[in-house]
């Protein structure tokens, strides 16, 4: 059974970004074929005559998915909090994917600013999805700040490396068994999504791996299938790993032929 996200039960754990697609039609196709339950969106400057933002918003509304606005590009608590307020008004949701970036090369979260912004926003009624690392102490502080969901990175945004710190992510899952956990960022292949779900994570959030694939809609469908496979595997209670071989064919009754 999937854990709920601030009381909302999603049809599946695929959260798909909306940036970098070759066209709006391909974006829509990717959502349809993957069955993604959540679309991430953002805010940017727009002139009065340019209606691109309005057209985009109408497209997203037609998808019939949950909308998760982000604070991408924010480097300070103030920027992130102000952006969150603007997003809440435009998109009409209390959900906010909170990003406070502290380092440009890896787009590493500023975890100190993140905790502070999460507290401010939670106290103001937001339902915060914090983009964080797998650090257990930071995770604990985010939960204390009011977060009911955590979104640790798999790898740096847009890197396509997959799950870089399996030990840390496994520890996070074990340490917070009741908290909905989303792998956010760094996935490159459907097998990465399956792996995340096999570890017991509740969802994955990705964008570049689908949007920059040669066939985005096909890749989106592949991610949807992989996610489902990983989730089923987790429910099926995987076997324990062992160091030595163990014959799967029964030894009893084997002919003595030497």
């Amino acid at each position, binding site marked *: 059974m999937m854990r709920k996200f601030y009381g909302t039960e999603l049809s599946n754990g695929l959260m798909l*970004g*909306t*940036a*970098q*697609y070759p066209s709006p039609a391909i*974006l829509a196709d990717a959502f349809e074929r993957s069955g993604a339950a959540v679309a*991430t*969106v*953002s*805010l*940017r*400057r*727009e*002139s*009065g*005559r340019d*209606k*691109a*933002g*309005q057209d*985009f*918003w109408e497209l*997203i509304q037609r998808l019939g998915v949950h909308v998760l*606005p*982000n604070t*991408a590009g924010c480097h300070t608590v*103030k920027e992130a909090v*102000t952006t969150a*307020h*603007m*997003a809440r*008004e*435009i*998109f009409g949701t209390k959900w906010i994917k909170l990003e406070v970036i502290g380092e440009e090369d890896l787009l590493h979260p500023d975890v100190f600013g993140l905790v502070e912004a999460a507290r401010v926003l939670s106290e103001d009624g937001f339902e915060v999805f914090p983009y964080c690392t797998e650090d257990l102490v930071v995770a604990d502080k985010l939960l204390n700040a009011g977060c009911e969901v955590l979104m640790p990175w798999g790898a740096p*945004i847009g890197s396509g490396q997959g799950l870089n710190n399996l030990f840390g992510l496994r520890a996070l899952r074990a340490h917070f068994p009741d908290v909905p956990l989303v792998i956010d*960022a760094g996935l490159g292949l459907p097998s990465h999504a399956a792996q995340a779900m096999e570890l017991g994570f509740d969802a994955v*959030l*990705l*964008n*570049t791996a689908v949007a920059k694939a040669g066939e985005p809609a096909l890749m989106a469908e592949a991610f949807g299938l992989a996610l489902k496979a990983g989730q089923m595997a987790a429910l099926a209670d995987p076997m324990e790993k062992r160091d030595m071989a163990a014959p799967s064919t029964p030894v009893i009754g084997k002919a003595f032929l030497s």
Partner: protein
Amino acid sequence: MNIQLNGEACQTEAKTLDLLLVQFEYGDAVVATAVNGEFVAEEQRRKIEICDGDAVEILAPMQGG
């Protein structure tokens, strides 16, 4: 008055934020606003006076990851 609108220098005689939006053709567009870094909710725009040197941000929905 000289203001900064989305980072660009502009001139306006609009006295309030809602009138500024009309002047720059935002009409019924779905946008969110901030003045000098502070969020201004839609229902507050008519109460926010625009002053010389103000930095106004007008943001619209956009693709994001």
